[in-house]
């Protein structure tokens, strides 16, 4: 199993909560594409060691839906040429509702995109406005209509909860849309106020605050209960899906599988090293990816900690058998601590997996920290 991530670092405008790497200068798009194709060619041997075919391709950003169809096509062709790709590869495109129209959707469907992740965030215009989103609720609904009309089956939406001005019922009413459309995937993120954002500034000025954590917790479990009732599985802290429609691409991150990230600001992992390209669009388009490429090799402890961290964020939890195979000594070493969290009902053990409980999952970072091995 292997995945390719394409980072598309362009946005028309900056959303007030977002600290992802992107540029609102769209002028570099053409040069970016050239360098990206070059990078795909030059890194075609990335998975050789793993000897595994590409199973997922993911256009993330930024705003990938700002790319013209023919460009997306070129990127996909290049991947096909340079990598071994399985037949029923999952190809996801992250999209902004206002970029999507029926023609565009039909066209990207035709060139192979088979999964959409639409950045809805909220179905309330008031929320969208305050978050600095450039679309409105009507555009989201239209985008969904067209997506299904264009023949997409694997469609997911993103929502944000914990908005300081909103309330629990208002947020939960967003979920009604899951009954109106055959949406199969939901990513629901609790608002994090990051320092270098518009919201971060407002927080410094004491004009905006995160909601109380007891409210957050209540929202989280209300969300969980309601979405589960609608037939979704809560398979990772912020992700829900209908039966088999989990994001194969994102799951590969959590299952410790290799992935190649291309484009400025992207990260790659080959099982032992993590690579990243400097988030510098100008450098990328003038000098290419290699100038900004850095690498860090992971020690066994690093890999153990990452495995713990990622595993406990998923609903399935940590596979004890896999732990014992890969990190026996470390795993045994932390057993007293694991037992302590089991005894206090923050963790539970079932069918060979250790996972967060209803008491523990929403405070799992504290548990992860405690279980980490550090020198």
């Amino acid at each position, binding site marked *: 199993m292997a995945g390719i991530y394409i980072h598309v670092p362009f946005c028309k405008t900056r959303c007030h909560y977002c600290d992802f790497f992107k540029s609102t200068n769209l002028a570099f798009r053409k040069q970016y594409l050239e360098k990206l194709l070059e990078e795909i060619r030059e890194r075609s041997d990335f998975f050789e060691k793993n000897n595994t075919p590409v199973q997922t391709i993911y256009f993330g950003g930024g705003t990938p839906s700002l790319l013209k169809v023919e460009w997306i096509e070129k990127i996909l062709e290049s991947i096909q040429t340079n990598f071994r790709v399985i037949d029923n590869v999952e190809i996801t495109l992250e999209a902004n509702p206002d970029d999507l129209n029926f023609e565009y959707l039909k066209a990207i469907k035709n060139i192979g995109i088979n999964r959409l992740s639409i950045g809805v965030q909220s179905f309330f215009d008031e929320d969208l406005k305050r978050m600095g989103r450039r679309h409105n609720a009507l555009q989201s609904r239209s985008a969904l209509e067209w997506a299904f009309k264009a023949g997409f089956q694997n469609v997911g939406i993103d929502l944000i909860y914990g908005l300081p001005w909103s309330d629990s019922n208002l947020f939960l009413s967003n979920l009604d849309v899951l009954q109106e459309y055959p949406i199969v995937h939901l990513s629901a993120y*609790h608002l994090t106020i990051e320092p270098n954002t518009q919201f971060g500034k407002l927080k410094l000025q004491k004009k905006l605050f995160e909601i109380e*954590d007891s409210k957050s*917790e209540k929202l989280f479990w209300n969300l969980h209960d309601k979405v589960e009732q609608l037939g979704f599985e809560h398979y990772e802290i912020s992700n829900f899906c209908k039966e088999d429609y989990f994001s194969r691409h994102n799951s590969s*991150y959590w299952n410790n599988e290799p992935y190649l990230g291309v484009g400025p600001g992207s990260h790659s992992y080959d099982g032992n090293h993590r690579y990243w390209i400097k988030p510098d669009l100008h450098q990328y388009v003038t000098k290419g990816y290699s100038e900004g490429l850095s690498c860090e090799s992971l020690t066994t402890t690093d890999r153990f*900690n990452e495995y713990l961290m990622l595993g406990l964020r998923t609903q399935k939890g940590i596979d004890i058998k896999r732990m014992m195979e890969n990190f026996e000594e470390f795993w045994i070493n932390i057993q007293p601590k694991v037992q302590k969290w089991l005894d206090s009902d923050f963790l539970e053990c079932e069918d060979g997996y250790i996972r967060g409980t209803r008491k523990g999952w929403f405070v799992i970072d504290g548990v992860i920290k405690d279980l980490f091995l550090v020198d």
Partner: protein
Amino acid sequence: MKNIRNFCIIAHIDHGKSTLADRLLERTNTVSERELQEQTLDNMDLERERGITIKSHAIQMQYSKDGQVYTLNLIDTPGHVDFSYEVSRSIASCEGALLIVDATQGIQAQTISNLYLAVEHNLTIIPVLNKMDMESAMPDEVEDQIIDLIGCDRSEIIRASGKTGMGAEEILNAIVERVPPPTGDPDAPLQALIFDSVFNSFRGIIAYFKVVNGKIRKGDKVKFFNTGKEYEADEIGVLKLEMVPRDELSTGDVGYIISGIKTSREVRVGDTITHVDRPCSKAISGFEEVKPMVFAGVYPIDTDDYEDLRAAIEKLQLNDASLTFQPESSVALGFGFRCGFLGMLHMEIVQERLDREFNMDVITTVPNVPYKVYTKQGDVMEVHNPSGLPEPTVIDHVEEPYIRAQIITRSEFIGPIMTLCLGKRGELINQHYLTSDRVELSFDMPLAEIVFDFYDKLKSISKGYASFDYYTTGYRTSKLVKLDILLNGDPVDALSTLTYFDNAYPLGRRMCEKLKELIPRQQFDVAIQAAIGAKIIARETVKALRKDVTAKCYGGDITRKRKLLEKQKKGKKRMKQVGNVEVPQKAFINVLKLD
């Protein structure tokens, strides 16, 4: 001898003593401008930063006037209440004193108490009005204060500025003309007063002294009167910017002696040096054994650093004889030391020097004063830490140290300061107007009341316009209890305090409130309780954390997120585990910073 002038400087912190001293050194060519770092006399970094002189030094200048060359010995004095004994010994070595007063601020408490000391020792006082270059200078008003205080003539006051060099020549002139030369009998048996000592890693302890009577020669066999120890004077000399060896120092001279002394405890400030062969009949009066008045536990943050901490404290003690320590252990903090300090500032200085000079991160526990516990059996014991207090059933009564506090402030702040001091069990002894709007207040107070949150409070209620000085006056009977703090039911020994009974309830309540701020939220509720014996007198709860999870963790987030959590975990290592509760280091330090 008639051309020697020994003088010291009396000044409040920040009144520009060091800068003015620099100008004198410059004028007398003792230091070239190139060598003259700002404030030459304070050669510890810490001192320079804080603008206070912790250890006193001495320096010799040559000054020509009317065809005569004079030797001027400036004996620098430490400028803080904790070091008043050391100040008194420096003063005892001089015949004159420059009274430096900031023309923008007027006289402060500390200036007064040191001035009284100088007057007591019959020193000639030369009043100097410093910082005359400042726009906010109020020379006439401050001169009035000085005249009121020492009864001098207005013409005797020299207007100066350390910054511009104004008045420096006049000051040097006045030192020669007004300060009398030292008296004493060069032929009498040797009597030299030790007023300071420093540790040098190559040469051991270097003691600074003034020859009061007789002569000392290189190679002489000498005896320190109070310790009774004998040494050979390997090297003697005078103090310029560097030490300059001499073969002989005579009555009135100020100099240093190096005699292979290894530890600072052998050299007591105030001790008398005399000859083994022809000893003086009695020591110079005024010698006192300096006793620490504030005790606190000092623990390494990392328990593995215990031995390193011991080595560091031992090194500090080499040039700081007033620092005492003995091993102590705590359930919460592991192994550490009970250290004795002269006062709160001394404690802060030691803590900071441990950090800067030895890179030792330490936790200092709640400080307390030494108590005298009288048992029913009739024994007396001195208690330096809360765990040392015997069971209430064996105690007959307890005594605590008292101080005489002197506060100088503007009259508008009398009310609040009175309230503060009376609230701290102070008794007003005297209220004296220095000028129409400056008043000197004297209180008798328990020392224990000033070891926490007194300075800060005094500062804030007087908007910084109060200066404070104190000296200890003896012991009085007290009602003492041990106040314990419990976290989720487990007592935390390092947070126990000894307190006056009537203060226990409010203190317990405030400590609980403060700890609630200091202890971070954890995965479960943390109950904070204050107790006297088995009786709970206050309680607060730190509510459990309800959200502690990252929203997004995808390909690009993984390593960063792991590193962040690892970093937080390492930060947690600096927390102390008390039962199942994690307590940050700063909680132990800041718990008494109550407001």
